[in-house]
Protein backbone atom coordinates (compact mmCIF):
# COMPACT_ATOMS: atom_id res chain seq x y z
CA UNK A 1 0.00 0.00 0.00
CA UNK A 2 1.04 3.54 -0.43
CA UNK A 3 3.18 5.13 2.22
CA UNK A 4 2.60 8.63 0.93
CA UNK A 5 1.97 11.45 3.35
CA UNK A 6 1.87 9.41 6.47
CA UNK A 7 4.80 10.36 8.61
CA UNK A 8 4.30 9.96 12.35
CA UNK A 9 2.30 12.83 13.80
CA UNK A 10 4.02 15.08 16.28
CA UNK A 11 2.48 17.25 18.94
CA UNK A 12 4.06 20.65 19.12
CA UNK A 13 3.57 23.00 22.04
CA UNK A 14 2.92 26.36 20.51
CA UNK A 15 2.56 28.40 23.68
CA UNK A 16 4.89 31.36 23.95
CA UNK A 17 6.92 31.94 27.05
CA UNK A 18 5.05 34.57 29.02
CA UNK A 19 7.07 36.87 31.23
CA UNK A 20 6.45 36.72 34.97
CA UNK A 21 3.58 39.03 35.70
CA UNK A 22 1.59 40.02 38.74
CA UNK A 23 -1.22 37.56 38.18
CA UNK A 24 1.13 34.60 37.92
CA UNK A 25 2.64 35.57 41.27
CA UNK A 26 -0.80 36.03 42.79
CA UNK A 27 -1.94 32.60 41.59
CA UNK A 28 1.17 30.80 42.79
CA UNK A 29 2.11 32.61 45.99
CA UNK A 30 -0.41 31.20 48.51
CA UNK A 31 0.28 27.56 47.66
CA UNK A 32 4.03 28.06 47.34
CA UNK A 33 4.30 29.90 50.65
CA UNK A 34 2.21 27.53 52.79
CA UNK A 35 3.85 24.50 51.20
CA UNK A 36 7.37 25.84 51.63
CA UNK A 37 6.96 26.91 55.25
CA UNK A 38 5.05 23.90 56.55
CA UNK A 39 6.30 21.11 54.35
CA UNK A 40 9.63 21.67 52.65
CA UNK A 41 11.30 23.84 55.28
CA UNK A 42 10.55 21.40 58.14
CA UNK A 43 12.00 18.54 56.10
CA UNK A 44 15.25 20.40 55.51
CA UNK A 45 15.30 21.71 59.06
CA UNK A 46 14.89 18.13 60.29
CA UNK A 47 17.93 17.10 58.29
CA UNK A 48 19.83 20.06 59.74
CA UNK A 49 18.76 19.16 63.29
CA UNK A 50 20.03 15.63 62.81
CA UNK A 51 23.53 17.10 62.73
CA UNK A 52 23.17 18.67 66.18
CA UNK A 53 23.00 17.30 69.70
CA UNK A 54 21.15 18.65 72.68
CA UNK A 55 22.54 18.33 76.20
CA UNK A 56 20.53 18.01 79.41
CA UNK A 57 20.22 21.81 79.73
CA UNK A 58 18.79 22.09 76.23
CA UNK A 59 21.94 23.67 74.78
CA UNK A 60 22.47 22.64 71.16
CA UNK A 61 25.82 21.92 69.57
CA UNK A 62 26.96 20.78 66.14
CA UNK A 63 28.09 17.16 66.10
CA UNK A 64 28.19 16.40 62.35
CA UNK A 65 27.32 12.78 61.65
CA UNK A 66 27.62 11.97 65.37
CA UNK A 67 23.94 11.12 65.82
CA UNK A 68 24.03 8.71 62.92
CA UNK A 69 27.06 7.00 64.42
CA UNK A 70 25.18 6.72 67.72
CA UNK A 71 22.10 5.36 65.96
CA UNK A 72 24.07 2.66 64.16
CA UNK A 73 26.65 1.73 66.80
CA UNK A 74 25.38 2.56 70.30
CA UNK A 75 23.66 -0.66 71.45
CA UNK A 76 20.88 1.34 73.13
CA UNK A 77 19.97 2.70 69.69
CA UNK A 78 21.26 0.28 67.09
CA UNK A 79 19.42 -2.77 68.44
CA UNK A 80 15.99 -1.17 68.36
CA UNK A 81 16.77 0.54 65.04
CA UNK A 82 17.68 -2.65 63.20
CA UNK A 83 14.75 -4.40 64.84
CA UNK A 84 12.37 -1.68 63.63
CA UNK A 85 13.87 -1.68 60.15
CA UNK A 86 13.61 -5.47 59.92
CA UNK A 87 10.01 -5.40 61.15
CA UNK A 88 9.21 -2.65 58.67
CA UNK A 89 10.60 -4.79 55.85
CA UNK A 90 8.37 -7.66 56.95
CA UNK A 91 5.43 -5.24 57.16
CA UNK A 92 6.19 -4.08 53.60
CA UNK A 93 6.70 -7.62 52.27
CA UNK A 94 3.32 -8.75 53.61
CA UNK A 95 1.66 -5.78 51.91
CA UNK A 96 3.42 -6.35 48.60
CA UNK A 97 2.58 -10.02 48.50
CA UNK A 98 -0.83 -10.26 50.15
CA UNK A 99 -2.39 -6.82 49.69
CA UNK A 100 -1.35 -6.30 46.12
CA UNK A 101 -2.17 -9.78 44.89
CA UNK A 102 -5.60 -9.72 46.49
CA UNK A 103 -6.08 -6.22 45.08
CA UNK A 104 -5.12 -7.44 41.62
CA UNK A 105 -7.39 -10.46 41.86
CA UNK A 106 -10.36 -8.39 43.00
CA UNK A 107 -9.75 -5.82 40.27
CA UNK A 108 -9.66 -8.54 37.62
CA UNK A 109 -12.93 -10.02 38.85
CA UNK A 110 -14.59 -6.62 39.09
CA UNK A 111 -13.52 -5.65 35.60
CA UNK A 112 -15.16 -8.66 33.97
CA UNK A 113 -17.62 -7.20 31.47
CA UNK A 114 -21.32 -7.65 32.24
CA UNK A 115 -20.67 -8.51 35.89
CA UNK A 116 -23.80 -7.85 37.89
CA UNK A 117 -23.52 -5.89 41.13
CA UNK A 118 -20.10 -4.53 40.24
CA UNK A 119 -20.70 -1.15 41.89
CA UNK A 120 -22.00 -2.66 45.11
CA UNK A 121 -19.00 -4.98 45.49
CA UNK A 122 -16.61 -2.17 44.69
CA UNK A 123 -18.18 0.27 47.12
CA UNK A 124 -18.36 -2.20 50.00
CA UNK A 125 -14.87 -3.62 49.54
CA UNK A 126 -13.44 -0.12 49.48
CA UNK A 127 -15.26 0.90 52.66
CA UNK A 128 -12.57 -0.06 55.25
CA UNK A 129 -10.03 2.07 53.37
CA UNK A 130 -12.11 5.14 54.17
CA UNK A 131 -12.04 4.62 57.92
CA UNK A 132 -9.40 5.79 60.32
CA UNK A 133 -6.52 3.39 60.88
CA UNK A 134 -7.05 3.92 64.60
CA UNK A 135 -10.65 2.75 64.44
CA UNK A 136 -9.69 -0.26 62.34
CA UNK A 137 -6.98 -1.14 64.80
CA UNK A 138 -9.40 -1.13 67.72
CA UNK A 139 -12.05 -3.07 65.81
CA UNK A 140 -9.63 -5.90 65.09
CA UNK A 141 -8.22 -5.79 68.57
CA UNK A 142 -11.70 -6.46 69.88
CA UNK A 143 -12.43 -9.19 67.35
CA UNK A 144 -9.16 -11.01 67.98
CA UNK A 145 -9.41 -10.59 71.75
CA UNK A 146 -9.72 -13.92 73.58
CA UNK A 147 -11.99 -12.07 76.03
CA UNK A 148 -14.70 -11.45 73.48
CA UNK A 149 -14.12 -14.73 71.71
CA UNK A 150 -15.63 -13.77 68.36
CA UNK A 151 -12.65 -14.97 66.37
CA UNK A 152 -12.44 -18.18 68.38
CA UNK A 153 -16.14 -18.75 67.97
CA UNK A 154 -15.90 -18.17 64.25
CA UNK A 155 -13.02 -20.61 63.84
CA UNK A 156 -14.84 -23.14 66.00
CA UNK A 157 -17.86 -22.93 63.72
CA UNK A 158 -15.54 -23.88 60.86
CA UNK A 159 -14.25 -26.77 62.94
CA UNK A 160 -10.90 -25.10 63.48
CA UNK A 161 -11.35 -23.78 66.99
CA UNK A 162 -8.07 -25.24 68.15
CA UNK A 163 -6.20 -23.00 65.70
CA UNK A 164 -7.13 -19.94 67.68
CA UNK A 165 -4.42 -18.17 69.59
CA UNK A 166 -4.15 -14.61 70.89
CA UNK A 167 -2.14 -13.73 67.79
CA UNK A 168 -1.79 -10.06 68.65
CA UNK A 169 -0.26 -10.87 72.00
CA UNK A 170 2.31 -13.42 70.89
CA UNK A 171 5.76 -12.25 69.94
CA UNK A 172 5.93 -14.67 67.03
CA UNK A 173 2.66 -13.70 65.38
CA UNK A 174 1.93 -10.11 66.39
CA UNK A 175 3.79 -8.43 63.52
CA UNK A 176 2.25 -10.54 60.80
CA UNK A 177 -1.19 -10.14 62.37
CA UNK A 178 -0.86 -6.37 62.48
CA UNK A 179 0.40 -6.39 58.89
CA UNK A 180 -2.59 -8.43 57.75
CA UNK A 181 -4.98 -6.05 59.50
CA UNK A 182 -3.37 -3.20 57.58
CA UNK A 183 -3.66 -5.25 54.38
CA UNK A 184 -7.33 -5.83 55.12
CA UNK A 185 -7.86 -2.10 55.44
CA UNK A 186 -5.90 -0.90 52.42
CA UNK A 187 -6.57 -3.59 49.84
CA UNK A 188 -9.10 -1.18 48.31
CA UNK A 189 -6.39 1.12 47.00
CA UNK A 190 -4.54 -1.31 44.72
CA UNK A 191 -7.92 -2.75 43.77
CA UNK A 192 -9.23 0.61 42.60
CA UNK A 193 -6.07 1.68 40.80
CA UNK A 194 -5.70 -1.62 38.97
CA UNK A 195 -9.42 -1.73 38.23
CA UNK A 196 -9.20 1.71 36.64
CA UNK A 197 -6.20 0.64 34.59
CA UNK A 198 -8.02 -2.48 33.41
CA UNK A 199 -11.05 -0.43 32.36
CA UNK A 200 -8.76 1.85 30.41
CA UNK A 201 -7.72 -1.00 28.15
CA UNK A 202 -9.83 -0.53 25.01
CA UNK A 203 -12.40 -3.27 24.41
CA UNK A 204 -11.15 -3.51 20.84
CA UNK A 205 -7.78 -4.82 22.03
CA UNK A 206 -9.45 -7.60 23.98
CA UNK A 207 -11.73 -8.36 21.04
CA UNK A 208 -8.78 -8.42 18.67
CA UNK A 209 -6.93 -10.84 20.92
CA UNK A 210 -10.04 -13.00 21.18
CA UNK A 211 -10.32 -13.13 17.40
CA UNK A 212 -6.60 -13.94 17.35
CA UNK A 213 -7.42 -17.05 19.34
CA UNK A 214 -6.46 -16.06 22.87
CA UNK A 215 -8.68 -17.40 25.67
CA UNK A 216 -9.51 -15.32 28.74
CA UNK A 217 -6.39 -16.39 30.59
CA UNK A 218 -4.12 -15.64 27.63
CA UNK A 219 -5.81 -12.28 27.08
CA UNK A 220 -5.00 -11.46 30.69
CA UNK A 221 -1.43 -12.70 30.52
CA UNK A 222 -0.41 -11.37 27.11
CA UNK A 223 -2.50 -8.23 26.78
CA UNK A 224 -3.90 -6.93 30.05
CA UNK A 225 -1.03 -7.64 32.42
CA UNK A 226 1.64 -5.99 30.24
CA UNK A 227 -0.62 -2.97 29.82
CA UNK A 228 -1.23 -2.50 33.55
CA UNK A 229 2.43 -2.94 34.54
CA UNK A 230 2.92 0.82 34.95
CA UNK A 231 -0.02 0.85 37.38
CA UNK A 232 1.47 -2.07 39.31
CA UNK A 233 4.63 0.04 39.56
CA UNK A 234 2.64 2.93 41.01
CA UNK A 235 0.95 0.57 43.46
CA UNK A 236 4.32 -0.76 44.57
CA UNK A 237 5.82 2.66 45.26
CA UNK A 238 2.67 3.88 47.04
CA UNK A 239 2.79 0.77 49.22
CA UNK A 240 6.46 1.37 49.94
CA UNK A 241 6.07 4.99 50.96
CA UNK A 242 2.94 4.26 52.98
CA UNK A 243 4.53 1.34 54.84
CA UNK A 244 7.79 3.08 55.73
CA UNK A 245 5.82 6.01 57.04
CA UNK A 246 3.20 3.98 58.97
CA UNK A 247 2.58 4.69 62.61
CA UNK A 248 -1.10 5.06 63.53
CA UNK A 249 -2.09 1.40 63.44
CA UNK A 250 0.73 0.13 65.63
CA UNK A 251 0.35 3.06 68.01
CA UNK A 252 -3.39 2.49 68.35
CA UNK A 253 -3.14 -1.27 68.84
CA UNK A 254 0.13 -1.66 70.63
CA UNK A 255 1.08 1.79 71.93
CA UNK A 256 4.43 3.50 71.47
CA UNK A 257 6.18 0.47 72.98
CA UNK A 258 5.02 -1.65 70.04
CA UNK A 259 4.74 -4.81 72.11
CA UNK A 260 4.97 -7.57 72.87
CA UNK A 261 8.65 -6.93 73.48
CA UNK A 262 9.00 -4.53 70.50
CA UNK A 263 8.00 -7.28 68.11
CA UNK A 264 5.68 -4.91 66.21
CA UNK A 265 8.03 -1.93 66.34
CA UNK A 266 8.43 -0.25 62.96
CA UNK A 267 10.30 2.90 61.99
CA UNK A 268 7.29 5.15 62.63
CA UNK A 269 6.89 4.04 66.26
CA UNK A 270 10.67 4.02 66.73
CA UNK A 271 10.77 7.62 65.49
CA UNK A 272 7.99 8.58 67.91
CA UNK A 273 9.85 7.08 70.88
CA UNK A 274 13.13 8.68 69.87
CA UNK A 275 11.41 12.04 69.68
CA UNK A 276 9.12 11.91 72.72
CA UNK A 277 10.79 9.26 74.82
CA UNK A 278 9.07 6.53 76.84
CA UNK A 279 9.44 4.94 80.25
CA UNK A 280 13.09 3.91 79.92
CA UNK A 281 14.43 6.84 78.01
CA UNK A 282 13.99 10.61 77.67
CA UNK A 283 12.95 11.98 74.33
CA UNK A 284 15.44 13.81 72.16
CA UNK A 285 14.61 16.30 69.47
CA UNK A 286 17.86 15.74 67.68
CA UNK A 287 17.76 11.95 67.83
CA UNK A 288 14.16 12.18 66.62
CA UNK A 289 15.38 14.27 63.71
CA UNK A 290 18.11 11.71 63.07
CA UNK A 291 15.64 8.83 62.84
CA UNK A 292 13.37 10.94 60.64
CA UNK A 293 16.30 11.72 58.36
CA UNK A 294 17.12 8.03 58.02
CA UNK A 295 13.47 7.31 57.17
CA UNK A 296 13.55 10.13 54.66
CA UNK A 297 16.67 8.59 53.14
CA UNK A 298 15.03 5.17 52.88
CA UNK A 299 11.93 6.63 51.23
CA UNK A 300 13.99 8.75 48.85
CA UNK A 301 16.06 5.75 47.79
CA UNK A 302 12.85 3.84 47.13
CA UNK A 303 11.28 6.69 45.18
CA UNK A 304 14.41 7.28 43.12
CA UNK A 305 14.79 3.58 42.39
CA UNK A 306 11.22 3.62 41.18
CA UNK A 307 11.54 6.79 39.11
CA UNK A 308 14.79 5.91 37.41
CA UNK A 309 14.73 2.14 37.47
CA UNK A 310 11.24 0.81 37.37
CA UNK A 311 9.17 3.57 35.81
CA UNK A 312 11.57 4.08 32.89
CA UNK A 313 11.26 0.48 31.89
CA UNK A 314 7.53 0.34 32.45
CA UNK A 315 6.79 3.05 29.92
CA UNK A 316 3.18 3.91 29.48
CA UNK A 317 1.81 2.81 26.17
CA UNK A 318 -0.19 5.30 24.22
CA UNK A 319 -3.45 3.45 23.83
Amino acid at each position, binding site marked *: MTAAADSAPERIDTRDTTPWSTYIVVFLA*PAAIVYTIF*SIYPLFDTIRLSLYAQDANGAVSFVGPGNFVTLLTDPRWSGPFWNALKNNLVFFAVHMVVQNSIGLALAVLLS*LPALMGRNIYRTLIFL*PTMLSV*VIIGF*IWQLILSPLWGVARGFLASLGAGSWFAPWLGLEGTALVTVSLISV*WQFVGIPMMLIYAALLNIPDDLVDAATVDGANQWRVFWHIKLPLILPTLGVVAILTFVGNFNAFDLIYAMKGAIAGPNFSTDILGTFFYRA*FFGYQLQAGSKTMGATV*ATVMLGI*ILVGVLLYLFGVQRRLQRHAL
Partner: protein
Amino acid sequence: MIGFAGLPRPGRIAVHAALVLYTILAIGPILLVVMNSFKARKAIFGSPLSLPDGTSFSLIGYDSVLAKADFGLYFVNSLVVTVASLFFVLLFGAMAGWALTEYRFRGNLVLGLYLAIGIMVPIRLGSVSILSMMVDLGLVNTLVALILVYTAMGLPLAILILGEFMQQIPKDLRDAARCDGVSEYRIFFAVILPLIRPAVATVAVFTMVPIWNDLWFPLILAPGRNTQTVTLGVQQFIGQYVTDWNAVLSSLTLAIAPILLLYILFSRSLVRGLTAGAVK
Protein backbone atom coordinates in the same frame (compact mmCIF):
# COMPACT_ATOMS: atom_id res chain seq x y z
CA MET B 1 -16.53 -8.48 24.48
CA ILE B 2 -17.95 -11.71 25.74
CA GLY B 3 -16.29 -11.54 29.15
CA PHE B 4 -18.32 -12.43 32.18
CA ALA B 5 -21.45 -13.35 30.23
CA GLY B 6 -19.33 -15.71 28.16
CA LEU B 7 -18.11 -17.66 31.16
CA PRO B 8 -19.76 -20.99 31.74
CA ARG B 9 -22.33 -21.01 34.53
CA PRO B 10 -20.08 -22.57 37.22
CA GLY B 11 -17.46 -19.93 36.38
CA ARG B 12 -19.96 -17.15 36.89
CA ILE B 13 -21.08 -18.59 40.20
CA ALA B 14 -17.47 -18.92 41.36
CA VAL B 15 -16.77 -15.27 40.54
CA HIS B 16 -19.77 -14.11 42.54
CA ALA B 17 -18.94 -16.46 45.40
CA ALA B 18 -15.41 -15.05 45.63
CA LEU B 19 -16.65 -11.47 45.56
CA VAL B 20 -19.41 -12.08 48.09
CA LEU B 21 -16.99 -13.79 50.47
CA TYR B 22 -14.51 -10.97 50.23
CA THR B 23 -17.24 -8.38 50.67
CA ILE B 24 -18.35 -10.10 53.87
CA LEU B 25 -14.75 -10.15 55.06
CA ALA B 26 -14.45 -6.43 54.30
CA ILE B 27 -17.58 -5.17 56.02
CA GLY B 28 -18.28 -7.94 58.53
CA PRO B 29 -15.96 -6.63 61.25
CA ILE B 30 -17.37 -3.13 60.91
CA LEU B 31 -20.96 -4.36 61.06
CA LEU B 32 -20.10 -6.50 64.07
CA VAL B 33 -18.89 -3.50 66.05
CA VAL B 34 -21.79 -1.27 65.03
CA MET B 35 -24.29 -4.04 65.83
CA ASN B 36 -22.89 -4.83 69.25
CA SER B 37 -22.68 -1.21 70.25
CA PHE B 38 -26.48 -1.32 70.57
CA LYS B 39 -26.49 -4.29 72.94
CA ALA B 40 -26.24 -4.84 76.65
CA ARG B 41 -22.96 -6.23 77.99
CA LYS B 42 -24.35 -9.68 78.50
CA ALA B 43 -25.52 -9.97 74.90
CA ILE B 44 -22.24 -8.62 73.57
CA PHE B 45 -20.46 -11.60 75.05
CA GLY B 46 -23.32 -14.10 74.96
CA SER B 47 -24.35 -13.79 71.33
CA PRO B 48 -22.00 -11.42 69.53
CA LEU B 49 -23.17 -12.44 66.05
CA SER B 50 -26.87 -11.76 66.49
CA LEU B 51 -28.66 -8.50 65.84
CA PRO B 52 -29.84 -6.52 68.87
CA ASP B 53 -33.41 -7.49 69.75
CA GLY B 54 -35.99 -6.43 72.35
CA THR B 55 -34.14 -7.99 75.26
CA SER B 56 -30.56 -7.29 74.26
CA PHE B 57 -31.03 -3.76 72.94
CA SER B 58 -29.34 -1.16 75.09
CA LEU B 59 -27.89 2.30 74.67
CA ILE B 60 -25.88 2.11 77.85
CA GLY B 61 -22.61 2.36 75.93
CA TYR B 62 -23.66 5.59 74.29
CA ASP B 63 -24.83 6.99 77.61
CA SER B 64 -21.48 6.40 79.22
CA VAL B 65 -19.49 7.67 76.21
CA LEU B 66 -21.48 10.86 76.08
CA ALA B 67 -21.13 11.30 79.84
CA LYS B 68 -17.41 10.61 80.06
CA ALA B 69 -16.11 12.12 76.82
CA ASP B 70 -16.91 15.34 75.06
CA PHE B 71 -17.77 13.81 71.70
CA GLY B 72 -19.59 16.91 70.54
CA LEU B 73 -16.41 18.93 70.94
CA TYR B 74 -14.33 16.31 69.11
CA PHE B 75 -16.71 16.44 66.18
CA VAL B 76 -16.66 20.22 66.02
CA ASN B 77 -12.85 20.22 66.17
CA SER B 78 -12.54 17.60 63.42
CA LEU B 79 -15.09 19.43 61.32
CA VAL B 80 -13.41 22.82 61.67
CA VAL B 81 -9.98 21.40 60.87
CA THR B 82 -11.20 19.35 57.92
CA VAL B 83 -13.39 22.00 56.33
CA ALA B 84 -10.88 24.82 56.74
CA SER B 85 -7.97 22.73 55.41
CA LEU B 86 -10.12 21.54 52.54
CA PHE B 87 -11.07 25.09 51.61
CA PHE B 88 -7.46 26.27 51.47
CA VAL B 89 -6.20 23.16 49.68
CA LEU B 90 -8.83 23.51 46.98
CA LEU B 91 -8.52 27.25 46.53
CA PHE B 92 -4.72 27.51 46.63
CA GLY B 93 -4.33 24.23 44.77
CA ALA B 94 -6.62 25.31 41.94
CA MET B 95 -4.88 28.67 41.66
CA ALA B 96 -1.41 27.15 41.53
CA GLY B 97 -2.51 24.36 39.21
CA TRP B 98 -3.97 26.94 36.87
CA ALA B 99 -0.81 29.09 36.84
CA LEU B 100 1.40 26.06 36.22
CA THR B 101 -0.66 24.64 33.36
CA GLU B 102 -1.80 27.84 31.70
CA TYR B 103 1.20 30.17 31.73
CA ARG B 104 4.57 29.29 30.42
CA PHE B 105 6.89 31.37 32.53
CA ARG B 106 10.55 30.87 33.35
CA GLY B 107 10.99 28.21 36.00
CA ASN B 108 7.56 26.70 35.35
CA LEU B 109 8.87 23.14 35.19
CA VAL B 110 11.17 23.50 38.20
CA LEU B 111 8.39 24.98 40.30
CA GLY B 112 6.05 22.19 39.21
CA LEU B 113 8.54 19.54 40.28
CA TYR B 114 9.20 21.38 43.55
CA LEU B 115 5.50 21.39 44.36
CA ALA B 116 5.27 17.69 43.49
CA ILE B 117 7.91 16.57 46.03
CA GLY B 118 5.23 16.41 48.70
CA ILE B 119 3.32 13.73 46.77
CA MET B 120 6.00 11.17 47.51
CA VAL B 121 7.78 12.54 50.59
CA PRO B 122 5.60 12.40 53.71
CA ILE B 123 5.44 15.70 55.56
CA ARG B 124 5.28 13.67 58.79
CA LEU B 125 9.03 13.21 58.69
CA GLY B 126 9.42 16.93 59.32
CA SER B 127 7.42 16.69 62.56
CA VAL B 128 10.33 17.52 64.85
CA SER B 129 10.82 20.82 63.14
CA ILE B 130 7.09 21.47 62.70
CA LEU B 131 6.58 21.09 66.45
CA SER B 132 9.42 23.54 67.23
CA MET B 133 7.97 25.98 64.76
CA MET B 134 4.51 25.73 66.27
CA VAL B 135 5.97 26.23 69.74
CA ASP B 136 7.75 29.37 68.50
CA LEU B 137 4.59 30.64 66.86
CA GLY B 138 2.53 29.88 69.96
CA LEU B 139 0.23 27.65 67.96
CA VAL B 140 0.60 24.42 69.92
CA ASN B 141 -2.78 23.10 71.02
CA THR B 142 -4.62 25.21 68.48
CA LEU B 143 -6.61 24.05 65.51
CA VAL B 144 -4.78 26.61 63.38
CA ALA B 145 -1.60 24.53 63.65
CA LEU B 146 -3.43 21.51 62.25
CA ILE B 147 -5.06 23.53 59.47
CA LEU B 148 -1.71 24.94 58.33
CA VAL B 149 0.00 21.56 58.29
CA TYR B 150 -2.89 19.80 56.54
CA THR B 151 -3.08 22.53 53.92
CA ALA B 152 0.60 22.06 53.14
CA MET B 153 0.07 18.28 53.11
CA GLY B 154 -2.88 18.34 50.71
CA LEU B 155 -1.59 20.85 48.20
CA PRO B 156 0.79 18.76 46.04
CA LEU B 157 -1.80 16.19 44.97
CA ALA B 158 -4.49 18.84 44.54
CA ILE B 159 -2.24 20.91 42.28
CA LEU B 160 -1.41 17.86 40.18
CA ILE B 161 -4.97 16.57 39.72
CA LEU B 162 -6.61 19.96 39.24
CA GLY B 163 -3.86 21.05 36.85
CA GLU B 164 -4.28 17.95 34.73
CA PHE B 165 -8.00 18.50 34.62
CA MET B 166 -7.63 22.14 33.63
CA GLN B 167 -5.45 21.15 30.71
CA GLN B 168 -8.41 19.34 29.22
CA ILE B 169 -10.53 22.48 29.12
CA PRO B 170 -10.55 23.65 25.51
CA LYS B 171 -8.05 26.42 24.95
CA ASP B 172 -10.57 28.29 22.79
CA LEU B 173 -12.68 28.99 25.84
CA ARG B 174 -9.96 30.99 27.57
CA ASP B 175 -8.87 32.64 24.36
CA ALA B 176 -12.42 33.73 23.64
CA ALA B 177 -12.58 35.28 27.10
CA ARG B 178 -9.24 37.01 26.53
CA CYS B 179 -10.46 38.45 23.21
CA ASP B 180 -13.38 39.89 25.14
CA GLY B 181 -10.89 41.66 27.40
CA VAL B 182 -11.66 39.61 30.52
CA SER B 183 -8.88 39.78 33.14
CA GLU B 184 -6.84 36.70 34.01
CA TYR B 185 -8.38 36.67 37.50
CA ARG B 186 -11.88 36.69 36.13
CA ILE B 187 -11.05 33.98 33.61
CA PHE B 188 -9.90 31.82 36.49
CA PHE B 189 -12.75 32.50 38.89
CA ALA B 190 -15.63 32.88 36.45
CA VAL B 191 -14.69 30.50 33.62
CA ILE B 192 -12.26 27.87 34.88
CA LEU B 193 -13.39 27.23 38.47
CA PRO B 194 -16.99 26.40 37.53
CA LEU B 195 -15.75 24.03 34.82
CA ILE B 196 -13.51 21.98 37.11
CA ARG B 197 -16.24 21.21 39.63
CA PRO B 198 -16.13 17.42 39.04
CA ALA B 199 -12.37 17.35 39.66
CA VAL B 200 -12.83 19.50 42.74
CA ALA B 201 -15.21 16.90 44.18
CA THR B 202 -12.62 14.17 43.62
CA VAL B 203 -9.78 16.14 45.16
CA ALA B 204 -12.05 17.06 48.06
CA VAL B 205 -12.55 13.42 49.00
CA PHE B 206 -8.86 12.57 48.57
CA THR B 207 -7.94 15.49 50.80
CA MET B 208 -10.66 15.20 53.39
CA VAL B 209 -10.41 11.55 54.38
CA PRO B 210 -6.73 11.47 55.47
CA ILE B 211 -7.22 14.70 57.43
CA TRP B 212 -10.30 13.47 59.25
CA ASN B 213 -8.65 10.14 60.04
CA ASP B 214 -5.19 11.37 61.03
CA LEU B 215 -3.85 10.52 64.47
CA TRP B 216 -0.23 11.71 64.20
CA PHE B 217 -0.54 15.47 64.00
CA PRO B 218 -3.35 15.86 66.54
CA LEU B 219 -1.27 13.69 68.89
CA ILE B 220 1.83 15.85 68.40
CA LEU B 221 0.51 19.34 67.77
CA ALA B 222 -2.86 19.52 69.51
CA PRO B 223 -3.26 16.86 72.20
CA GLY B 224 -4.90 19.34 74.64
CA ARG B 225 -8.34 18.62 76.01
CA ASN B 226 -9.99 21.39 74.01
CA THR B 227 -8.44 20.67 70.64
CA GLN B 228 -8.78 16.90 70.38
CA THR B 229 -10.16 15.61 67.10
CA VAL B 230 -12.43 12.59 66.86
CA THR B 231 -9.63 10.18 66.01
CA LEU B 232 -7.44 11.31 68.88
CA GLY B 233 -10.40 11.60 71.26
CA VAL B 234 -11.50 8.03 70.57
CA GLN B 235 -7.95 6.77 70.90
CA GLN B 236 -7.54 8.43 74.29
CA PHE B 237 -11.01 7.43 75.46
CA ILE B 238 -10.52 3.77 74.64
CA GLY B 239 -7.11 3.80 76.26
CA GLN B 240 -8.80 4.99 79.44
CA TYR B 241 -11.93 2.83 79.47
CA VAL B 242 -10.60 -0.26 77.77
CA THR B 243 -12.63 -2.61 79.97
CA ASP B 244 -15.97 -0.89 79.41
CA TRP B 245 -16.95 -2.84 76.31
CA ASN B 246 -20.22 -1.02 75.82
CA ALA B 247 -18.48 2.33 75.85
CA VAL B 248 -15.64 1.15 73.59
CA LEU B 249 -18.01 -0.23 70.96
CA SER B 250 -20.20 2.87 71.12
CA SER B 251 -17.29 5.24 70.78
CA LEU B 252 -16.01 3.33 67.75
CA THR B 253 -19.45 3.46 66.16
CA LEU B 254 -19.70 7.19 66.81
CA ALA B 255 -16.31 7.68 65.17
CA ILE B 256 -17.27 5.60 62.13
CA ALA B 257 -20.68 7.20 61.61
CA PRO B 258 -19.74 10.51 59.94
CA ILE B 259 -17.35 8.93 57.46
CA LEU B 260 -19.86 6.19 56.75
CA LEU B 261 -22.54 8.76 56.04
CA LEU B 262 -20.22 10.79 53.84
CA TYR B 263 -19.11 7.68 51.99
CA ILE B 264 -22.65 6.61 51.27
CA LEU B 265 -23.40 10.10 49.94
CA PHE B 266 -20.24 10.54 47.90
CA SER B 267 -19.07 7.05 47.00
CA ARG B 268 -20.07 7.65 43.38
CA SER B 269 -17.91 10.69 42.89
CA LEU B 270 -15.11 9.12 44.88
CA VAL B 271 -15.09 6.00 42.77
CA ARG B 272 -15.33 8.13 39.66
CA GLY B 273 -12.31 10.05 40.83
CA LEU B 274 -10.29 6.96 41.59
CA THR B 275 -11.11 5.49 38.21
CA ALA B 276 -10.80 8.86 36.48
CA GLY B 277 -10.72 8.69 32.74
CA ALA B 278 -12.07 5.20 32.76
CA VAL B 279 -15.72 6.07 32.42
CA LYS B 280 -17.45 3.63 30.18
